[in-house]
């Protein structure tokens, strides 16, 4: 059986780190904070690996199926009998897989940051935020309750906010962290309402019970939820769709992706951890977590998910081709890859062979975490070296940064889907799943994989080949980052190279059964050839500095410009927020309050004053007029009471 203490400690150790460093770091642990954080996380990682081992190889498999365990469930907030927010731990294939991914990547980032952020003033703060993030992310993946996942969902959001805004005195960082938080918050609104709908329909917030009730058409809950409709869709559809909106926001799916490129304002290791490997895949994880509901109860929503994923994948890939900020390229690539995971889920079905998409998605999540973290950390090493994010300031770095170069290349090959690197295997499965279910998505995915290879190698060549910048020599710039920065690169490179050989379907599948992956060379040919084509195009264009890319850009004209400007989605958002939210709603509301509501109150006051001023003449000082009023009073009373009311 699961070891509760061990599992609970996995998230709690980083939390301890957060508290310790957050409260005392600034004053007392200025220098040792990095070590403390890293050691705690190392312990966490070991526990995670132990848990994974125990689960997959010792107790997890019951009668050939990986069971779901909920070893701990504490009531956190009781709403009504049966409906409560619980703090629990769920142990099933995906959560265990995520545990490993999160702790491992986080550990890498912790180690890497020891070198990358050395000497920073807010070093302890940084590590405490990392701790907070890791805790939240682990809490998210272990959540046994839909509200618990929401709680940690928000917490990762805020940790992401804090880490993006780590350089708080940089206006662009402040703007980026605000944007990231607000956009995801907007999506979370959907998530929240989705939770309300689902939990009300299911009469519970607990995942297992919820899934149980909402996937079998016999239960009363299912019937009621399916029967109540709003705008032509059932409550269940709305709930599931809104939950997906939340996932899409966090996973930067089109059109809620605009925060992700900006989020690159954060320190690069943070981008590697949060905005590449872990947090951004939370949306995928969420859909996977609720997959039975999506696939059984609301297949329509699943189709939407597929399309959103596919569109995101290709749009991001196209934009990535035009960007010059290396982190932004990686950001769009992340978005594109998450699009893959998302549509893989979208084309999947529940159970058995047809659940291939699910397995593929998770597999891709896993491999992507490795190579994308590697890419970011590599990019970080480059940035650390040249102090710039822009491709224009780079070139010919392969000699100066040999380890970085090799590991980066491995990662590029992995993401381009070149066998036998990790990306090949997972992408292969995804394409297969799409091929089996939705040809349109398959074609999009195929094209995207070609573009992916192209822009990744555009990046690679631009950084490491292209022009030789005379100012960059060992003498002027020194060596590449130290051991602590190189170790994670190497470890991740090993992962990126070898992770594909893990028989992932054996461990993770939609219903817990074993899913054997089979290779079909004929099927693999197309994507591999496309990928190689992309690589060679990039080689032709970018190996040496020349004017071919510029010519190509001009010949593409409008399309290039649109892609370069990210299809103007940012501008649309800006227009909406600035003109609609601020000018059309906020300003009138403030004006209304100041002038109408408040004005009304003041008006009452002023009217009283002016009446008071107006009637002062009554008190004329003339005693005879007083007598007239006296008589008038008598007469009026007499008339009223004798002639009118008598």
């Amino acid at each position, binding site marked *: 059986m699961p070891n509760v203490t061990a599992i609970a400690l996995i998230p709690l150790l980083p939390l301890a780190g957060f508290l310790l460093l957050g409260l005392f770091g600034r004053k007392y642990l200025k220098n040792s904070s990095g070590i403390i954080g890293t050691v705690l996380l190392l312990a966490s990682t070991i526990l995670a690996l132990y848990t994974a081992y125990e689960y997959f190889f010792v107790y997890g498999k019951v009668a050939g199926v990986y069971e779901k365990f909920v070893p701990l469930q504490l009531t956190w*907030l009781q709403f009504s009998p049966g409906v409560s927010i619980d703090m629990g731990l769920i142990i099933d294939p995906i959560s265990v897989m995520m545990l490993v991914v999160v702790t491992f990547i986080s550990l890498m980032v912790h180690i890497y940051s020891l070198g990358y952020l050395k000497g920073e003033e807010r070093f302890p703060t940084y590590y405490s935020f990392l701790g907070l993030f890791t805790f939240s992310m682990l809490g998210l993946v272990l959540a046994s309750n839909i509200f618990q996942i929401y*709680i940690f969902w928000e917490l990762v959001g805020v940790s992401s906010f804090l880490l993006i805004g780590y350089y*708080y005195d940089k206006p662009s960082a402040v703007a980026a962290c*605000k944007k990231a938080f607000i956009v995801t918050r907007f999506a*979370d609104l959907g998530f929240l309402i989705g939770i309300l709908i689902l939990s009300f329909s299911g009469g519970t917030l607990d995942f297992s019970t919820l899934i149980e009730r909402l996937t079998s058409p016999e239960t009363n809950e299912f019937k009621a939820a399916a029967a109540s409709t709003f705008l032509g869709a059932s409550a269940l559809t709305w709930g599931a769709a809104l939950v997906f909106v939340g996932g899409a926001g966090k996973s930067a799916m089109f059109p809620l992706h605009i925060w992700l490129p900006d989020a690159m304002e954060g320190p690069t290791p943070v981008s590697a951890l949060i905005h590449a490997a872990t947090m951004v895949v939370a949306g995928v994880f969420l859909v996977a977590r609720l997959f039975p509901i999506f696939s059984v109860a609301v297949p329509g929503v699943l189709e939407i998910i597929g399309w959103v994923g596919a569109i995101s994948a290709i749009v991001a890939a196209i934009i990535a081709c035009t960007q010059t900020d290396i982190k932004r390229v990686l950001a769009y690539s992340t978005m594109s890859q998450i699009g893959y995971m998302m549509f893989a889920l979208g084309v999947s079905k529940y159970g058995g062979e047809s659940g291939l998409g699910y397995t593929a998605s998770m597999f891709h999540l896993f491999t992507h975490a490795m190579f994308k973290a590697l890419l970011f950390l590599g990019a970080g090493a480059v940035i650390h070296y040249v102090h710039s994010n822009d491709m224009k300031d780079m070139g010919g770095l392969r000699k100066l940064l040999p380890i970085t170069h090799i590991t980066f290349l491995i990662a590029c090959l992995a993401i381009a889907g070149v066998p036998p690197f990790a990306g090949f295997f997972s992408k292969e499965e995804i394409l297969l799943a799409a091929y089996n279910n939705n040809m349109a998505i398959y074609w999009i995915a195929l094209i995207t994989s070609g573009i992916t290879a192209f822009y990744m190698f555009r990046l690679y060549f631009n950084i490491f080949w292209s022009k030789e910048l005379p100012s960059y020599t060992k003498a002027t710039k020194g060596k590449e980052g130290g051991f602590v920065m190189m170790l994670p690169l190497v470890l991740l490179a090993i992962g990126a190279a070898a992770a594909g050989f893990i028989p992932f379907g054996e461990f993770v599948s939609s219903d817990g059964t074993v899913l054997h992956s089979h290779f079909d060379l004929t099927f693999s040919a197309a994507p591999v050839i496309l990928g190689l084509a992309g690589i060679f195009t990039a080689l032709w264009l970018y190996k040496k500095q020349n004017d071919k890319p510029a010519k190509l850009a001009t010949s593409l004209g409008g399309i290039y410009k649109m892609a370069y400007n990210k299809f103007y989605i940012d501008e649309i958002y800006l227009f909406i927020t600035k003109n609609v939210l601020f000018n059309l*709603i906020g*300003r009138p509301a403030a004006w209304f309050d100041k002038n109408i509501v408040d004005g009304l109150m003041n008006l009452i006051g002023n009217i009283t004053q002016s009446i008071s001023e107006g009637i002062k003449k009554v008190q004329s000082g003339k005693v005879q007029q007083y007598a007239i009023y006296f008589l008038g009073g008598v007469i009026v009373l007499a008339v009223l009471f004798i002639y009118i009311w008598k």
Partner: protein
Amino acid sequence: MNLLLLIGLPLLTAVAVLLSRNKEQVKWISLLGSMAQLALAFMLFFIFRNERATGNVTQMLFEQNYPLFSSLNINFHFGVDGISVAMILLTSFVVVAGVLVSWNIEKMTKEFYFLLLLLGMGAYGFFISLDLFILFFFLEISVIPKYLLIGIWGSGRKEYSANKLALMLMGGSALILVGILGLYFAAGRSFDIMELSKATVSLSYQHILFPLLFVGFGVFTALFPLHTWVPDGHSSAPTAGSMFLAGISMKLGGYGCLRVATYLLPEGAKEFANIIIILSAIAILYGAFATMMQKDLKYINAYSSVSHVGFSLLGIGMLTQTAITGALMQMVSHGLMTALFFAVIGMIYDRTHTRMVGEMGGLMKKLPFISSVFFIVGLCSLGLPGLSGFVAEMTIFMGSWENTDAFHRIATIAAAMSIVVTAVYILRAIGNTVMGPIRNESYLSLKDAAWNERLAAIILVVGILAIGIAPGWLNDLLRPAAEEIMNRIAGN
């Protein structure tokens, strides 16, 4: 436990303050007194829990009943249920924090603390009263302190704001007065809440009296569109004054809306629930949008208070047990949060001498403690899990969703939309003040929080975290009490 201690102790402290000889004495007596109140509130809390744990399910505990104006059947009737205990805890937190942040008041120190303590006493008395007359007495008793606190120690257009506040609250009181008199005569000459809760008031009376009472108390708790005293009053008040106003006084209104209007006039509540919902949904969104355009930190918090308090009214209007529990949680949470917010604003203002968001920036560099607290309170305001605001809002949403018709659903969604807008304005405020580059060179020489400010902030942060991290205790406290109210509404 003798509840009269809760009135006696603040009164004694206030008198001791009046008799003390110098400023130091005044401050220390106030601090000790308020600490003692805090201890007392905790004692009450634990004794109350203990009683409940041992199976005492009487609705009101520690009841005391002395005849006061016996010819009018007015009694000094006290007792507490979970709601009162929670509110008393809140009050004691805010009082201590308020005393602490006012440590450097130079002008008329004695009077300041005297009024502050009097204000606290009024709140305690209000929350333990079970007689409408006494309740009204304690509600009104705070008018003088509020007016003087703003008018004498305030800033900006203080006279205008003080006047507006006093007059609008008086307007609310006038309606409440008529309402309770109506109840008094409709239920056979009794002001006693426990008796009235068993009395049957005819439908037509309920339909007249409920709006009077609800709107009356609503003015106190910034019911749209009668909230206009909030921005001006809060922004002009001295720091502790704003804390008390938003942290305690506004809660008096919410408590009254629930305990008096809704509980005693259930049919009226049902009749007008939809209007309450509409008004509070408007207040939530409209307050949030209006906040977005504010440039003064105090105005930001004041308008956001309108928005947040809207949640508690929304919860009441939803008339489900969970929603009402959530409404009460929101009151407690908002009380702590907004008090902390004002405290932080005060601390910043004391240093930078400006409250304009546009003039600050990068305070994090020199004021890490204050800035961190600002972060915490901002995040609490936008409903971050782990902090109190989240718990309360989610409970309200969950409760609201129990109403299945489209109207309630749409209102809930509208209210939920505010969490995005809240994020916008809170992050704007945070981004422009504590983050960003330092815009004023002189800020480089600022000193971080002093011990009293730290203590005040920590006390309130602990409160916020205690609710945010482990809401169970508050839930256990409020839910049974909310159930009693729901039983009455449901007609059992």
